[in-house]
């Protein structure tokens, strides 16, 4: 017996990870199912987009539109050209992580001297490099085409933004795929869970397209910053999950609705996630469950409150830039009839307690649903919108020489005393639900999936036992009291 390996010169951390990276890259490049579509998207799609950009521009000009409308499509298509090859990073990552687990070729790797982090980075980089290279190439082909045929070139800021956003999205998709892979043992199950990555990415693309159309590039920098934060969280989570113990110690073979339901039921029936199942009573919910959930959602609640304050300040600042003339509104014009007829504007609900209640429930449930597919962010954004409007009107009122605090106290506070806590609680629970796929669950014994189900049970408990009763009271107060307070405060009838 000899000791072949032990006398060797020690390689660096990266040298060892690079061995794995190179093998994974070689494997991907040999898979025609991946290479052919990537090559097509890289070489042909940019030409198609060049053609589209040209046609769109001509069409707008032909029908008398401002040429800027056509021009604004070009940067958006630049982003699309970069994104399409990038979508393969998700496919490759699922194949490289969970595919290897499914083919049982992961264990020999786990038995090798490579550390968990070397395995993680070797595989993650291998999933990212081919689609990113294809993406950059696609962008280059598109830009060269634009330069030659239309004489257009992007502003340096736009170019840097698109490259950075594209790279950040690749990291999100790959690091998200690792989190998903660690929860499944088959590519099929992983593909089902991949909607948790694809849907937020699609929503983000739609948001970015609007921003690009308005050429509001500073917002894109904020989006980039948010993506970097998400990346840090996902990579941290991935590093935690991609360890030998988690990969081999916990094996969830399939998505079994019955098991999922039983787990949810268990969390519903226990006070603490993973704690003992106890008799479910209303008394227990209000004395133990809700206080316990409030403790768990403390950070999320603080985040929501800060976001709402920021939205109000933002609304105020926006109004300061675009103040409305006073003829738009006069308190003297307020009567019970005008307030009751406000819903005729179109987007406001009928002014009955039932309609107000159902509108508020729908909005907050929609927030919960969007939270699931946006790591919680869209639930907060949805609630920030009305707070931004309140901030906007508070400034307007101040601008017209009236007290913004009186406005807030009369128009918002009577029912807001109940509605705002209800909305904050539900949104904080929704934020936690969305973020549960990013963060280690409260109990180290729970998997990511179990942590998510525990957060869902918390959301439902908060919604049913705290938000709904508060919204009901708020709706009754809003319809029966708020208007009277407004009229009384402004000395009207």
């Amino acid at each position, binding site marked *: 017996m000899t000791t072949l390996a032990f006398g060797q010169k020690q390689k660096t951390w990266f040298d060892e990870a690079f061995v794995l990276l190179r093998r994974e890259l070689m494997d991907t490049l040999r898979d025609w199912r991946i290479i052919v579509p990537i090559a097509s998207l890289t070489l042909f799609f940019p030409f198609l987009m060049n053609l589209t950009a040209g046609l769109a521009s001509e069409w707008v000009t032909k029908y008398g539109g401002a040429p800027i409308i056509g021009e604004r499509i070009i940067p958006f298509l630049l982003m699309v050209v970069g994104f399409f090859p990038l979508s393969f990073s998700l496919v490759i990552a699922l194949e490289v992580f969970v595919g290897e687990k499914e083919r049982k070729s992961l264990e020999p790797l786990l*038995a090798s001297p*490579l*550390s968990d982090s070397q395995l993680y980075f070797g595989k993650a980089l291998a999933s990212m490099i081919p689609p990113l290279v294809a993406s950059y190439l696609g962008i280059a082909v598109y830009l060269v085409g634009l330069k030659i045929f239309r004489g257009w070139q992007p502003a340096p800021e736009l170019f840097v933004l698109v490259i950075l956003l594209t790279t950040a999205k690749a990291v999100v998709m790959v690091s998200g795929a690792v989190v998903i892979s660690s929860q499944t043992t088959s590519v099929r199950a992983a593909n089902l869970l991949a909607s948790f990555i694809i849907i937020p990415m699609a929503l983000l693309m739609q948001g970015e397209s609007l921003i690009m159309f308005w050429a509001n590039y500073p917002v894109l920098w904020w989006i980039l910053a948010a993506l970097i934060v998400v990346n840090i969280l996902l990579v941290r989570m991935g590093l935690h999950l991609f360890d*030998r113990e988690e990969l081999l110690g*916990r094996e969830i073979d399939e998505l079994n609705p019955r098991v999922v339901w039983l787990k949810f039921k268990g969390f519903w029936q226990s006070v603490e996630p993973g704690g003992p199942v106890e008799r479910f009573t209303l008394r227990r919910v209000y004395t133990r469950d809700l206080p316990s959930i409030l403790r768990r959602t403390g950070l999320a609640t603080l985040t929501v409150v800060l976001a709402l304050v920021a939205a109000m300040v933002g609304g105020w600042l926006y109004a300061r830039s675009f103040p409305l003339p006073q003829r738009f509104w006069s308190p003297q014009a307020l009567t019970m009839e005008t307030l009751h007829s406000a819903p005729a504007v179109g987007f406001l609900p009928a002014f009955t307690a039932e309609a107000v209640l159902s509108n508020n429930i729908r909005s907050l449930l929609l927030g919960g649903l969007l939270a699931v597919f946006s790591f919680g962010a869209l639930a907060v954004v949805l609630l920030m919108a009305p707070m931004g409007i309140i901030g906007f009107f508070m400034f307007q009122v101040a601008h017209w020489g009236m007290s913004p605090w009186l406005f807030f106290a009369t128009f918002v506070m009577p029912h807001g005393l109940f509605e705002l806590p209800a909305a904050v609680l539900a949104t904080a629970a929704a934020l936690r639900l969305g973020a549960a796929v990013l963060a280690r669950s409260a109990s180290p014994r729970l998997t990511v999936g179990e942590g998510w189900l525990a957060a869902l049970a918390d959301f439902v408990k908060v919604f049913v036992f705290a938000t709904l009763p508060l919204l009901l009271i708020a709706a009754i107060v809003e319809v029966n009291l708020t208007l009277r307070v407004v009229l009384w405060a402004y000395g009207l009838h």
Partner: protein
Amino acid sequence: MIEAENLTKKFDDFVAVDSLSLSVPAGQVLALLGPNGAGKTTTVRMLSAILAPTTGRAIVAGFDVRQSPGEVRRRVGMLTEMPGLYLRMQAVEYLDFFGQLYGLGASQRQARAAALLSRFGMADAVDKRLSDYSKGMRQKLALIRSMLHDPPVLLLDEPTSAMDPQSARLVRDAIAALRGERHAIILCTHNLFEAEELADNIAIIRRGRIVEQGTMASLKSRLLGPPLMEVRLNAPLDGLLPDFFQRVQVVEQGDVWLRYQTEDPAVENPRLLRWLADRGAGVVTLSEVARSLEDVYLRVVAE
């Protein structure tokens, strides 16, 4: 070379391995036997530092699996239950990749791979893609992978499964040779013939616990009783039978044969033969009845 003491592994509330202790010195083979789900794979995963023990301690090739998992993995060759090959690669590429992971230099990788491929009769198939390999060839290549860095400790899970008899013989010879080269080997197998042929010690594991452990002879003696002898005669003993029953412990009998157990065959058998000859009984044969590891295993597992 492998020392495990009260090794326990829990997955949540499920105890996969429970207070397992074993020892395998250099140059010995331990066969780890047990039904599916008994805890063999989890034991091997702990000894190869893939899983950390919940409690207990294991020293493999001089390193603690919990404190120095990287050093342990560097010194262990592991053959997993499934070959787990990369099917788009060729054998040479595949072995080169694993050689690099284990820190072998380029010339060492080439030399070791060539020698092992030749030893297992696979030198002609090195240019084929692994997807074109038969099950047996894949298993042999996985075994070569585990031996590539010449580790002092080998943990082999079903090394001859899916192999034709000729290849299985080749692998068994290789394991015997490795034992001769002072490697410590743990062999997980359902092939009891293979275990009996190769193992110096046998450990039978059930529901995460080692229920029997020892050499083949000691296990047989402990579980199946003293050696079983069979005497065949040219005619029935008839009137001599009562006396015969008094001399030895007869366990089975036919017209012209008897089986008896004796603690000391070297003393008892010549004495019995003399007694039969003195009384004119014609002895055709006197031999020990072979009792296999299967008898031992089934006895333990049935309990």
